[in-house]
Structures are given as structure tokens and as C-alpha cells.
């Protein structure tokens, strides 16, 4: 028993965050930095100081994001590759979209978004097939379809960003400025959050449920595009010409996406619980993930959504202070953001301090989705106020 402490410690891993970084991690960070630097060198004349800061911040965030979740790397590379290819094909004229095969059928923003829509719907079906047939293969196909949809969606957004500048230097803007564009963002973010949990919890059984809400969003998107011509790029109204939009809107949609996911997982929870009661060895009960896991995902998603929604609402208040002269005006959109926020604050209290679990929280998460939906759709449709853009 005369072992030295040195020997006792030997072989025990002691990985600090920095020591855990592999060569690939650093290469990734380098690549992202080079990409950010290149974007800056090309476009800094169009950017103000805040936008430069946002670019730097996003570059850093992407580097770290890629460290924490490896799958982000191929995703980013695919989106960057396809977007650059499409932008190259466009050159300096939007008319290229009529002549180039790739643009016309694949990569012009409109085509890419149609592909995204189709892929999401196919993925939804595939997830349910995988669930019903207990097919690992179908599950892999479903995941691949979802990833592809995300790639096409982000590519579509990037290309749309470029297209807006091709329409006219003064028209160009980041595509998060109207209901059509943010609905795409919603689909993409919800899918990404889902894919994260899919990897983290190693189950594809929630996929169909979550993708249902994405498919519903896709249906709305298509209806909106075909009946209201909403897919045309519109110039920005003066109220939206601000760097705040670049951070406020995406932060909001991480919140909305996470809340939507939580609600759908809540649905899965209820289905599973009911199946356990009615037929414990039945078709459903043996296929859906255990209720505790669903409960955990639901909590995680709401915590994530709450954190981002808090930040987004604060950013909104800061923006309002700049655009409307007051950080809070009780404008309907603001007020509904507060309602959503209070709702989830109450939800979190019930879970964390009262120890609530299961059915009431699942139902509450589902009701929460409707509250959220009203905040981001209903307000624009039914109430008027300072946020009166993106009307139906």
C-alpha cells in the first residue's frame, strides 16, 4: 500500500474544457474565423460598428457551437458550400436564375425553400414509418432527410439574403424581416433543436411528433406563398432598418422553436402515458420513449426557450427604446411577449419549486404553444399596434 500520489493520479483523465479541444476543433475555429474575416473584408463598407460586432459575435458563437455539437460543422460546410456556389452562379444579375439549371431547380432561394418544405414533409412521414415499423433504417433516412431539409433551408436563406442585394443595394437585408421569412427560420430552428436532442438522447422516436409542427409551419408557408405572394422579397420599412433586427428576431425564434418542440414532446408524453394505461404492452407503449425521458426533454426545451426568449424580449426592449422612444410601450406584440414569458415562468416555477411532473405540465406546454402562436401570428392578424408589419 505504498503507492505515491503521482501513481494514483496517473491515467485519470483530467480534461479541462480547453484541454479537450482536439486538432479538428482548432481547425474548425480557424476555418470559421477565416470565413468571418473574409465576409468582413468583403462587406465591411456596408456595415456599421454594431453590425461588425454582430459578425464577430456570430463567428465566435459558431466556432463554439461547433465545438459543443460536432454535427454543426458538416452542416455549416454544406450550407456555406451550396450558398457560395449559388451566389457564384448568380454573379451580378438575378436573371441568372432563369438560365442556370442549378439555380432554377435547386438553389435559388425559392427553389431551395421548396426543397426544404418537401424534405421536411418526407422526413415527418419517414419518422412515423420508423416508429411504426421499428425500422432503424427508416429512422436513419428520416434523420438524413431532416438534416437535408435544414441544409436546404439555410442555403435558401443565405441565397435570399444575396438576392435581396441583387434587387438593389438599398433593398438588401437579412431575410428575417417578415412573416414568410421568419416562418422558414422557425422551421429551421425547431428542426435544429430537435436534431440536437435526437443526438443527445439517442432516440428518433420523438421525431414524428416534432416534425408534425414543422410540417404544419411548412403548410402555412406554402399557403402564404401561393395565395398571398408572400415569398417576394420586399424592401424594408424604415422601422425595421436596424442592426437590432439581426439579433432580436433570431433570438425570439429560438424561443418559439423550443416552446413548439416542448409542446410536441408534451403530446408524445400524453400519448405514451395513455398507452401505458390502456395497453402497456401495446403498439404505442412499446415504441415511444419512456415518459421520464420525454418529461426531461420537455423541461430542457422550455428552459432553453425561456432563456432565449428572455434575451430576445430584452433585446426588443432595447430596440424599442431606440426606435419608439421607450423601452416599454405596452404595444400588443410586446405585451404578448410578456404574456408568453410569464406563462413559461409560471410553468418553470411549478416544475422546479412545486415538483410538478407529467400530465399537468404536458398539457400546460401544449396550451403554451397556442399562447406562443398567438403572440407571433395572432397579434399580427388580429391586433394593431406599432409592430404592424407582416400582416396577413
Amino acid at each position, binding site marked *: 500500500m505504498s503507492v505515491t500520489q503521482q501513481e494514483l493520479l496517473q491515467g485519470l483523465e483530467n480534461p479541462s474544457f480547453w484541454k479537450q479541444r482536439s486538432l479538428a476543433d482548432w481547425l474548425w475555429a480557424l476555418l470559421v474565423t477565416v470565413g468571418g474575416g473574409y465576409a468582413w473584408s468583403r462587406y465591411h463598407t456596408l456595415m456599421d460598428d454594431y453590425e461588425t460586432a454582430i459578425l464577430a459575435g456570430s463567428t465566435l458563437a459558431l466556432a463554439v457551437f461547433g465545438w459543443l455539437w460536432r454535427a454543426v460543422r458538416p452542416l455549416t460546410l454544406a450550407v456555406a458550400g451550396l450558398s457560395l456556389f449559388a451566389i457564384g452562379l448568380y454573379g451580378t444579375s438575378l436573371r441568372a436564375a432563369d438560365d442556370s439549371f442549378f439555380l432554377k431547380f435547386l438553389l435559388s432561394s425559392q427553389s431551395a425553400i421548396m426543397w426544404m418544405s418537401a424534405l421536411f414533409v418526407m422526413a415527418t412521414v419517414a419518422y412515423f414509418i420508423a416508429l411504426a415499423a421499428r425500422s432503424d433504417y427508416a429512422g436513419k433516412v428520416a434523420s438524413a432527410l431532416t438534416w437535408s431539409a435544414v441544409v436546404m433551408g439555410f442555403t435558401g436563406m443565405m441565397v435570399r439574403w444575396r438576392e435581396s442585394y441583387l434587387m438593389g443595394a438599398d*433593398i438588401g437585408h437579412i431575410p428575417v424581416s417578415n412573416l414568410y421569412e421568419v416562418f422558414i427560420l422557425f422551421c429551421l430552428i425547431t428542426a435544429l433543436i430537435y436534431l440536437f436532442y435526437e443526438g443527445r438522447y439517442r432516440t428518433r422516436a420523438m421525431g414524428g411528433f416534432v416534425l408534425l409542427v414543422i410540417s404544419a409551419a411548412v403548410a402555412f408557408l406554402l399557403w402564404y406563398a401561393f395565395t398571398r405572394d408572400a415569398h417576394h422579397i420586399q424592401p424594408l420599412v424604415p422601422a425595421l432598418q436596424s442592426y437590432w433586427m439581426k439579433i432580436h428576431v433570431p433570438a425570439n425564434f429560438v424561443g418559439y422553436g423550443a416552446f413548439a418542440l416542448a409542446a410536441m414532446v408534451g403530446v408524445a408524453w400524453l400519448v405514451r402515458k395513455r398507452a401505458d394505461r390502456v395497453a402497456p404492452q401495446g403498439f404505442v407503449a412499446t415504441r415511444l420513449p419512456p415518459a421520464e425521458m420525454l418529461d426531461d426533454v420537455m423541461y430542457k426545451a422550455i428552459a432553453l426557450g425561456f432563456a432565449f426568449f428572455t434575451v430576445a424580449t430584452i433585446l426588443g426592449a432595447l430596440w424599442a427604446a431606440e426606435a419608439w422612444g421607450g423601452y416599454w410601450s405596452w404595444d400588443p406584440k410586446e405585451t404578448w411577449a410578456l404574456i408568453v414569458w410569464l406563462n413559461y415562468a409560471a410553468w418553470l416555477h411549478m416544475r422546479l419549486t412545486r*415538483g410538478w411532473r407529467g400530465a399537468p405540465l404536458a398539457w400546460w406546454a401544449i396550451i403554451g404553444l397556442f399562447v406562443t402562436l398567438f403572440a407571433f401570428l395572432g397579434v399580427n392578424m388580429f391586433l394593431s399596434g406599432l409592430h404592424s408589419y407582416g400582416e396577413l
Partner: protein
Amino acid sequence: MKSSAQRSSPRRRSTPVALEFLGSMNLAITLLVAIAIASVVGTVLQQNQPYQDYLIKFGPFWFEVFDTLGLYDVYGASWFLAILAFLVLSTSVCIWRNTPNMLREMRQFHLNVRYNSLRAFHHKREWEAGAEPQALQQALAGWLQGLGYRTRARQDGGHYILAAVRGRYSKLGYFFTHAAIVVICVGALFDSGLPLMLREASGQLKPETRDIPASEVPAISRLPLSNPSFRGSVRIPEGSSANIVFLQLRDGYLVQPLPFSVEVKDFRIEHYATGQPRSFESDLVIHDPGLDAPVTRTIAVNHPWIYKGYAIYQASFSDGGTGLTLDAWPLRAADIQPLRLTGKVRASQPIDTPDGPMTLEFTDFRMFNINPVVDEEGREQQKNFGPNFTFRLRDAAGQAHEYETYMLPVEFEGRRFMLSGVRTSQAEPFRYLHIPIDEAGGIERFMRFHAMLFDDRRVLEIARRATDQSFGQLDEPVAVGQAQVVQSMLGLVKQFRGGGFDAIADMVGQRVPEGRRDEVLNAYFKVLQTILGELYVELLRAEGVDLSQGMREQDARFFDESLTAAAALGAYGSPFFFQLRDFDFVQASGLQIARAPGKNVVYLGFALLCIGVFLMFYVPNRKLWFWIERRGESSHILGAGTGHRHQRDFEREFETLCAQLDARWKTVTR
């Protein structure tokens, strides 16, 4: 750990009931939900509209009820502020009661745990290792510190206890988030309307409800220069300046003086190629007695000017008194000479009309009117309808019609019309009159035709001519019958020019028994059509149109359109048609000027909130214990741990940690 209720139970007994109640979670949740519901009410019922509109919408009874409940200004209502105050109070009590526990908990290592309690943990494992307990304890501590844990060890008789904690700041998250709520609410209180409400309640302040020049507003509706926080607005016409702003307060306003004056040199709207506005900008000059020379700056939406703590924002724009030149076409006479008038937006003037003396109030002028139009393929397109102006025509009794009239003809399906909308209350949409445009591009032909309807002599003559055929061959006494018929034909025309086809239908409805109404109405319409058609033919003849080949198609269309327009003129309600001939455009910039000293406090609260939420959700709090004792020739190690609120993640971490130890030591139990 366990729920906070259990944790703080020893303290609870000593807390007064009132605090117990205030700090209770149930109250907190109730308040959160109450605020949410009140907020819903405030968005569903549009806030701070003119009280007149509410009265019309709800009727006198409910108007009173809602007014008493403060529903027209929910967020300024005393009950709403009281709920907010309770929330602040409740949160404060909650912080005050929980924070000491949490701080203690943060510093705690719980070195006095017992062997058996550790064995009762969900996450635990036992090993056997061939080393001295002390050496093991030191090695483990070194390793865990490298992993980011803080450790404490204690030797107690024959055993060592090593406790390790990571993410203890997670506990501060609670404090930061809840303190943030209090800080934000307190900061916002500075900037809210509460100080004003208190002064109002004590009778020192009374909002002005009359629409009078600022200079005439009495002192009781004026605020002192020293008022620390306000948010008001003012519209300043180009070339003018202002040193006050108006604060909207329910159905009235207050006047807030500024220590400087703001001049608007120029207001500009820039447009995209598509016609939508691209920017709203004002060139401002501040004249401050404290400055040697005026300072200038251009502001735009999203680009305010912060001057000495006063933030000046581009909020809106409106007309600044555009000069208007109008033609007033008489609509109640055979006379077709229009009257030339001049006026100014936001000014009013008396006007003599066949319906008695009236007041003409010009309310607005708009240079561009981008409206959605559905094109031939059914697509919606944005189209600029050009300038229009709005005005009210008020009779001696105070009743007014509001009009919105375009200056230039607008094309619909290949035909051009002069558009003029009318409504009797702001709550209604405009109903549009379409006056057909003649070949010369004006409304003269329609006006001439319409004037003919008022030429009774001519109408009688046409009626007589029309009846001659049927009465001509008959005897003398029947001529009396003819005169009656002719008179009633004139009556029909009079009905029509007073109220269109509807007036005739109403008359028939009153005078003719049910079963015969359609028949009579049809006959009347035919007669009317004939007379009006004859009048129109006379008009065409007078214009020198050649009718030998019959009527040209466009003339026939024009007749139909004229009938529609003439029929609508009855409901139009104005004795004149005011046609805009020329204008001298002056705009006004709507500025919002605010002072919000509480803003920095609120922003501090925002920062606390972000930090707090991050700490709570993303700094996982983990605790590990190792109980190490000598058993015979070797050492026995019991490891256990818990991950506060992150049990699932903790399970994975615990597994990876144990896996490493499993590889070195003999695992006794899992």
C-alpha cells in the same frame, strides 16, 4: 436537493403570517397569471382611443362600466399597478427569505454526511483499492479539482470524507433573476405614469381635454420643467419650432415644457423604386439658451438624437398645413359653375350651402397613397393613387360627414373615375363614390348631366314629350290625367336626385301594397331610365355628339356609370363636390421626446436577469462525496453524488467519472 419548502421549513414557523402569505409561491403564481390575463385584456381592447369611439362601440352603460374599471388604460389603472406592486413585494419577500438559505447552501460542503445516507443515494458506487485512505483522498481531490470541483476533506476517526462541489454559483441564479424583477419594476416605476397619477389624485394636475392652442392651456394641465421623466410628442411643421411636448393621458393631454426649442428645417420621405417609403428623416435644429450657437442634426427612424438626456425620436409625420385650392361643384342645383375656394389643412372655414351654413374643416392631405390593387391576373399589386385630401363638413347642428377625395382619376378595369369616400364616423370605413371621367379627362360632363336632373322645366318637358304619344290622340279631359302623370314623373326624378334608387324603393315600399311592389317598382325604374336617358341624349346633342348612328358604346357606358354615381350622390350627403385643383405642400414632423432616468436601472435589471437565467439553467450544480476507510489490507471507497435539477445529465457525468475509477480499482458494488 429537496424543494425549497422543505429547506426553509425551520424558518417558516417564525415568520409572521403576512410575510408567509406575501412570500408564498401560490401568491406569486397567481400574480403572474393575473398580470398575464390583464395584459390580454389590454391588447384585445384597443387602449387610449378617443372616448367618443368607446361610447359608440359599447353604448352608454358598458362605456361607464369599462371606464370605471379603467379598461381604456389598463396598464395605467390603479388595480393593475397594485398587482405589479404586489408582485414586487412578493418577490422581495421571497428573495429576503430564500437568499440566506441559498448563500449558506452555496458555501456548504456537508462534510458531516453519514455513511448510510450516502449508501441511500441513487448515484453511488463502491470500490476497493490498495492504497492508504489519505493518499487516496488526496489523489481524488487533486483529480476532481482538475475537473473544476471545489473540494473539502475531513478525517473523522478511521475514515476520510471528501466532498466536492461544482457549479455552486447556480444558486446565485435564483437571486439574480428575482432581484432583476424587482430592479426592473422599480426602475420602470420612475419612468411610469405613476408620479403623474399621484399628482392628479391630489388635485394638482388635471388633463386638458379641449383642443386648444398650447399657449392657452391652463397651469393645472402644465408640468414643471423639472419633471424628471416623461414621454411626449409634438408635431412641428417644416420651418417651425416648439419648446413643449404633449403627454397623452387617457382622453386628455398635459403640456410639458422643454429647456430648449426644437426646429424642424425639413422633413423628408424617401421612397424605394417600388414606391414604398424607405426612410423618414427630419433635419432638426436645437436652440438652447445654454449654447452659443444652435446645433443641427438629422434624425431618422431608428436613429434618435440624445440631447442632454432628452431623447428625440422620429415618430410620425403628418400634414403641416398644406395650402389647398378647390372647386366646389354644386350638387343641389341646375347651376354648373363651380366655386373657387382656398383653404389650409388643419384650418376650417364657414361655407354657405343650400342645406344651410356649414363649416368646412380640412383635416389632412396626403401626397402618396399606395393602395393594393388586384390586377387582371388576380395578383395584388401596390399602386400609387396620387394625392388626396380629407375634410369634414359640419352642419349647424354639429353633425359631420367626413370625406376623402383624390385629386387625380384612378383607373379600374380600363375605366377612369374620380374617387371620393364618405363616412359619418371614424369607426366606419369610407364608402366610395366613383364619378366617371369624361373624354377631356375631367368631371365636367358628369357635373353637367347631374345638374340637368335639377332642371325641373327640362324634366317636365321631357316627361310631357314622353307621355304625348300615349295621351296625344285622346280627348281633352284626359289632359288633366297627363298633367298628373307628368308631375309624378318629375316627382320620381326628385326622389332619385335626393336619395337614388333606394329612395324610390322606399317610397314604393310605403305606398304600394306588398304584392304589387315589384311590378310598380319596375315600371318606375323604366320611366326614370327613359327620362334620364332623354336628358343624357340632350346633353350629348348639346355637346355636338353625332347620334345619327345611335349612341357610341363609350357614351352608353358613361351613362350607366353616371346613373350609378348620381344615385350614390343622395347618400353622399354633401351639397358640394369639392375637387382638388392645386396644393402647396407643407409637412410636419411628429417627434417623440422622452426623458427616462429610470432607464439605466431597468437596464441593470436586464443584465441581472440575463445572468440569473444563465446561471440557473446552464451552470449545473453538482455534489460528490467519497467516504474512504481502511478495511483490512485495503481501502474501501464509497462514492455518491447528486446533480441538483440536472439528474439526467448528472447521471452521465457520474458514469464517466466512475468508469475511470472502475478501470483502476476493484468495483465492489454498483
